[in-house]
């Protein structure tokens, strides 16, 4: 390195990770200024004023950024054009400095995002544990999952989480006692508790429907597979019978007759409510479609439209009443042991639907 004011810098990656060893360039006096091994902050090297080129780069002189180690062409041109080299070096230093600042900002962004992600994952875990449906790619605003603005709904979601927990516990207990020996009186108690538990759900839903009927009707508080079978905010009473009936071994003639009649009347009631809902949709659609062309979002009979929506609450209540009565009648028709088996079958059916929803959600996340 016999050229005058130039020196050869060994080739390195642009100056972020490695300490700068630019001794030769600025002479011995600056060695002490170089902070070695400090990766995160720009190295501060004070450039003396007697180097004219550096005077022009006042930024550099004031903060004292380190020069950029980079590929340096040791061709003949270096010895012939020292100024050019100086300029180039200074530009490189500047570029490196900016690059370091950009990187710092980017890393800070990444850190923040990482913390946010951890937070979100924790929330998701908590929600899943409580049995809420949380799918992948969920947009909490549009689906209204955490309706923190509606206390009635927030309360319902929490209560429902507990409801599912208790449901699972009851199913477990039923399974255990049906495999073992239990006297009829104790079994009856279990069955009655299970029934009361369902009735409790209908009561909860009634309050929630008053708070936000669309939330209840959407079934967003249930898992995806359950939602597939949704009918006016819950399961179809006729489906309930379909799930229960195969599990009854011996039915008396009277029971068979009663079950047959229940199936029929349940279906008729369900159909009547379905048609009522359809009429509601039609009248609401007519209401919204009425009015002059070009009036934008103005609804001429908005009060009437609102009344129709109020009617939804009644329909949800009626549907739950139908579910309630169906369960009640089944309990009346069956023996205690049969009712216990039926409730176990029903509970396990919903457990399987929830498990299916989980499997489905996980399946989506696997790399294809």
């Amino acid at each position, binding site marked *: 390195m016999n050229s005058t004011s130039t020196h050869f810098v060994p080739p390195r990656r642009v100056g972020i990770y490695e300490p700068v060893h630019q001794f030769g360039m600025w002479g011995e006096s600056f060695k002490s200024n170089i902070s070695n091994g400090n990766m995160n902050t720009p190295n501060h090297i004070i450039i003396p004023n007697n180097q004219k080129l550096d005077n022009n780069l006042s930024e550099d002189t004031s903060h004292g950024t380190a020069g950029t180690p980079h590929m340096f062409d040791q061709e003949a041109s270096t010895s012939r054009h020292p100024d050019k080299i100086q300029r180039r070096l200074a530009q490189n230093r500047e570029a490196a400095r900016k690059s370091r600042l950009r990187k710092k900002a980017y890393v800070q962004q990444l850190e923040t995002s990482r913390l946010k992600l951890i937070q979100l994952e924790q929330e998701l875990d908590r929600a899943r544990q409580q049995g809420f449906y949380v799918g992948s790619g969920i947009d909490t605003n549009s689906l209204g999952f955490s309706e923190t603005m509606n206390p009635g709904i927030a309360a319902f979601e929490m209560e429902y989480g507990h409801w599912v927990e208790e449901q699972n516990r009851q199913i477990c207990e039923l399974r255990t006692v049906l495999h073992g020996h239990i006297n009829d009186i104790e079994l009856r108690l279990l069955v009655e508790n299970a029934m009361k538990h369902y009735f409790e759900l209908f009561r909860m839903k009634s309050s929630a429907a008053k708070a936000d009927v669309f939330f209840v009707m959407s079934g967003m508080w249930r898992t995806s597979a359950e939602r597939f079978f949704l009918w006016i905010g819950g399961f179809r009473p006729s489906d309930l019978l379909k799930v229960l009936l195969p599990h009854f071994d011996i039915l008396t003639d009277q029971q068979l007759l*009663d079950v047959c*009649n*229940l199936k029929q*009347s*349940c279906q*008729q*009631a369900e*159909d*009547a*409510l379905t*048609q*009522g*809902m359809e*009429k*509601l949709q039609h*009248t609401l659609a007519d209401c919204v479609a009425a009015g002059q062309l070009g009036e934008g979002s103005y609804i001429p009979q908005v009060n*009437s439209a609102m*009344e*129709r929506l109020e*009617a939804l609450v*009644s*329909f949800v209540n*009626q549907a739950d*009443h*139908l579910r309630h*009565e*169906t369960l*009640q*009648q089944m309990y*009346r028709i069956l023996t205690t042991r049969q009712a216990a088996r039926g409730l176990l079958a029903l509970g396990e059916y919903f457990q399987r639907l929830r498990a299916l929803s989980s499997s489905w959600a996980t399946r989506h996340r696997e790399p294809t």
Partner: protein
Amino acid sequence: MDKVVRMSSDKGVVIFSKSSCCLSYAVQVLFQDLGVHPTVHEIDKDPECREIEKALMRLGCSTPVPAIFVGGKLIGSTNEVMSLHLSGSLVPLVKPFQANLC
């Protein structure tokens, strides 16, 4: 009240409804499914709508519509009709009024 009594003592199934009430419509559909043709009074089209509502409430209906009478006797609202039907008691009640007795 007199008017209500008069209107409800029509033979057969009488439903007090409102033209906007879709739950009343559901009840009508149910009776039709059972082979009954109910008489439907849309009280919102009646000038004395308010009085009729009050009378129905006084008779014991939780909501004025739908109010269902069978053979002059108040059965109740949608809840009561559904409960009766699922317990198998509705059909015997309306049997005398079924269009086709088969």
